[in-house]
């Protein structure tokens, strides 16, 4: 750090009047001379002073300092730790026996230890105490500990949890005090677990080390079979043999249980991947499956949907900040309309000239996809766009040993909804009826007064709209960049083909099959080889079943 300090000092010259500068320079000199002798004195000063470690330059030391300070019961602890968190805590830059600490307030500096006001030291002598993540962790624990006696249940709950996580022997007395006053049973349980953890962590010679107590503690912990507990137990060293044995068996149980859950977790991963694939492929199942249009720009339409989300979010953030959390809800219809309209335009200006030439459609839409990509690139720039996930879509929930990420849950639900809506439209909706009519027998439908070209446009619009909605979902789990679509186009086609063209249920099965197979191959084959294997399996499968899982049977298929 020394060199960095010098660097900072160097910059300060510019801002200081020559006189101060000169004084500072002298100071630096003298202090540098003092340095060798200064170090031991400081160490000595540190002994007993709970604040001294905060001035250290090693984050690990600082972190430990914070913990001990928190449980020291020192009245200034709260203020100092808050200041540290907010980056308002400053140390004397140059080594000095009493390693002074200052807190910068809106009106001048106060001494950290006493809270007494002091005249502002020259900036050249100050070093803001940087907080890295381990120190931040310590602060969390500390604040946890401090929140232990707050009125609010939630705060106490959080405090108990952090105490459990940190398992800090120093906090034992604190926990005991809390336990006496704690009414809430749930919190009390966590506190007991925290106590057990702290106890096991505490060194043997400290009186609390009785084997029975420790065995009980192990037992207490073994009950909550989650990863943190496992890692806690695994971290315990130098226990009496009996205890060590108990710990080992406890860990073994936990592992066994977690393994079982692991299987379920894989299924969940598979399903959620399947849901994403399904969303990506649903639109294609219409444009490609029903209309037989090989739309290579499908991915780009999803990309447009994602960008629509981005735009909507910004509009809302600008106009109605209150609704920011629910931007997505507005983005869904917006994306559907934008993408749908785009789809109609594409159909009218491009696709309709190419019916009966499916392979030419492929080429034209490929060209279109290039154009759409470049267009977005020129409008929004090549870099990722920042689509924020609302609070209600982030985080996870524990279901037994399962960790279900909430955004994935939403996506699964969303996929189900979209598909349901789609099927309903096709089955019962007036549009759906005419779509099916046109696709089954164009001439007849036309004869019955259905305006087939218009229906074509709407069908393609519907498919594109669904793709747009998929884009909204993708914006939550993937980059919103001009390349977004390309990552999904091939998979989408595979899903539709696997399921059997012209069959929505087929698409569903195709998507879920791909997802689950992929997630089960991945663990032992690795992500890369896993994907390859899935593709090979797919190629072989299509050899066996040339028209997918659910082929359209009968003479109709031949025509």
């Amino acid at each position, binding site marked *: 750090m020394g060199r960095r300090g010098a660097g900072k000092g160097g910059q300060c010259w510019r801002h200081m009047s020559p006189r101060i500068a000169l004084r500072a320079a002298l100071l630096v000199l003298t202090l540098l001379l003092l340095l060798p002798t200064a170090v031991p004195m400081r160490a000595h000063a540190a002994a007993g002073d709970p604040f001294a470690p905060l001035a250290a330059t090693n984050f690990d030391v600082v972190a430990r300092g914070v913990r001990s300070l928190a449980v020291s019961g020192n009245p200034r602890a709260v203020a100092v730790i808050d200041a540290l968190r907010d980056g308002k805590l400053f140390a004397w830059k140059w080594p000095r026996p009493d390693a002074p600490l200052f807190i910068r307030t809106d009106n001048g500096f106060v001494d950290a230890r006493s809270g007494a006001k002091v005249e502002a030291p020259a900036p050249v002598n100050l070093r803001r105490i940087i907080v890295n993540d381990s120190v931040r962790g310590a602060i969390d624990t500390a604040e946890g500990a401090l929140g232990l006696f707050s009125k609010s249940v939630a705060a106490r709950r959080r405090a108990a949890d952090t105490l459990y996580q940190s398992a800090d022997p120093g906090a034992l007395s604190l926990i005991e005090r809390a336990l006496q006053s704690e009414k809430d049973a749930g919190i009390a349980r966590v506190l007991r677990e925290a106590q057990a953890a702290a106890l096991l962590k505490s060194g043997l010679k400290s009186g609390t080390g009785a084997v029975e107590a420790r065995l009980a503690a192990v037992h207490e912990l073994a009950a909550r079979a989650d990863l943190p507990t496992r890692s806690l137990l695994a971290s315990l060293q130098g226990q009496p043999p009996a205890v060590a044995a108990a710990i080992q068996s406890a860990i073994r149980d936990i592992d066994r249980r977690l393994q079982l859950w692991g299987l379920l977790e894989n299924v969940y991963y598979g399903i959620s991947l399947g849901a994403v694939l399904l969303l990506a492929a649903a639109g294609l199942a219409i444009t*490609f499956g029903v209309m*037989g249009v*090989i739309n*290579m720009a499908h991915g780009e339409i999803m990309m447009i949907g994602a960008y629509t989300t981005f735009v909507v979010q910004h509009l809302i953030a600008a106009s109605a900040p209150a609704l920011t959390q629910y931007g997505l809800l507005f983005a869904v219809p917006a994306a559907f309309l934008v993408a749908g309209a785009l789809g109609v335009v594409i159909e009218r200006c*491009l696709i309709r*000239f*190419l*019916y*009966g*030439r*499916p*392979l*030419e*459609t*492929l*080429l*034209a839409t*490929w*060209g*279109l*996809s*290039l*154009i759409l*990509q*470049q*267009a977005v690139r*020129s409008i929004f720039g090549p870099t990722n766009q920042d689509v924020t996930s609302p609070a209600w879509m982030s985080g996870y929930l524990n279901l037994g040993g399962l960790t279900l990420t909430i955004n994935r849950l939403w996506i699964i639900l969303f996929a189900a909804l979209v598909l349901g809506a789609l099927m309903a439209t096709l089955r019962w909706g007036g549009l759906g009826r005419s779509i099916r009519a046109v696709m089954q027998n164009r001439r007849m439908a036309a004869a019955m007064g259905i305006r087939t070209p218009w229906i074509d446009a709407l069908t393609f619009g519907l498919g594109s709209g669904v793709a747009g909605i998929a884009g909204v979902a993708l914006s939550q789990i993937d980059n919103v960049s001009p390349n977004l679509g390309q990552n999904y186009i*091939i998979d989408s*086609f*595979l899903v539709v*083909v696997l399921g059997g*063209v012209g069959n929505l249920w087929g698409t569903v099965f195709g998507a879920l099959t791909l997802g689950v197979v992929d997630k089960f191959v991945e663990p032992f084959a690795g992500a*890369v*080889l896993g*994907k*390859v294997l899935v*593709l*090979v399996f*797919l*190629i*072989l499968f*299509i*050899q*066996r079943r*040339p*028209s997918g899982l659910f082929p359209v049977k009968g*003479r109709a298929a*031949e*025509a």
Partner: protein
Amino acid sequence: MQLDRTAVATLGCVLGGAALLASLNLLTPAASAVHVPDFVISVVGKYLCYAILALAVDLVWGFAGILTLGHAAFFALGGYAMGMYLMREIGARGVYANPILPDFMVFIGWNKLPWYWYGFDHFWFALVMVLAVPGVLAFVFGWFAFRSRVSGVYLSIITQALTYALMLAFFRNDMGFGGNNGMTDFKDILGAPLDRESTSAGLMLITAIVLAAAFLVARAMTRSRFGKVLMAVRDAESRTRFLGYRPESYKLVVWTVSAVLAGIGGALYVPQVGIINPSEFAPGNSIEAVIWVAVGGRGTLSGAILGAVLVNLGKTWLTSALPEVWLFAIGGMFIFVTLFLPRGIIGLFAARRPAAGTEPKSAAAEAAAREAAG
């Protein structure tokens, strides 16, 4: 085999043009106005390789109606076979001066050559592999696909899956093909240093000759009775069955030949661009190859060549002239061609009715054929 003027013209342009450029590059002093810089030579050489690929695609798409979205895979495989030879040719001149192992193997810490690299220190072996690897893969793939009557879009999609799978596989460093970086920094081919003008000019000429030969072979095939059956299969597959032909075996033959052709193109491509890596397998490349054919004129061999050259020429020019918007131009061109020139540029110039038995027929007729099949 008697040659009509199309063939003469095509051969003339390919061979004559190449010879002209090469001589202008080698024989004229750098200062002279007619001098052709090496850059042009290497670029033209690249175009000619692409033309070979286009020819291969046109064989299966234009004449057998198999829309392949995976032909770049065969191109790349041929390229890798050649790349492996060039890699071995480097010998001890790599940065680690390892006489046997290519650099990339040294630094992913392998200490012995994997078995599938044996033999590639011999040029003849590499050549055999250039033909064999794409050929065998195509044969196996086609044998399964065509026998189980996978056709149309389904076939297109799985050819795409094929090349995609290969791309992912070759990206893996554990495959022993250099992973993402692939193979590069080649020194020389058959002792001729690759950084000498004469070598690149020579390679370009050889490519032109191979292209001409490929053109003749393809032409002979499509004009033979085999070719006529092929077109029959393309337009009315089930009808040919009732005549006693087995479409699958016809498709298999032309598919395999075309794959080998693509492989050769790739093999010539690598020494001229100086790198082969998995992105050559990218599905986009295969689609582009199809587009060259569409632009030039599907079902006409000269068209395939023309398309490949023109599109890539455009790409070279646009990426420098208007780097910001060249994608608009290229994309627009593809749309324009498919919409307004269904028979490609050749179609523009050809007489209203195409020569007997060259071009695929109209959408209407296709539909008719399909119904008749029902």
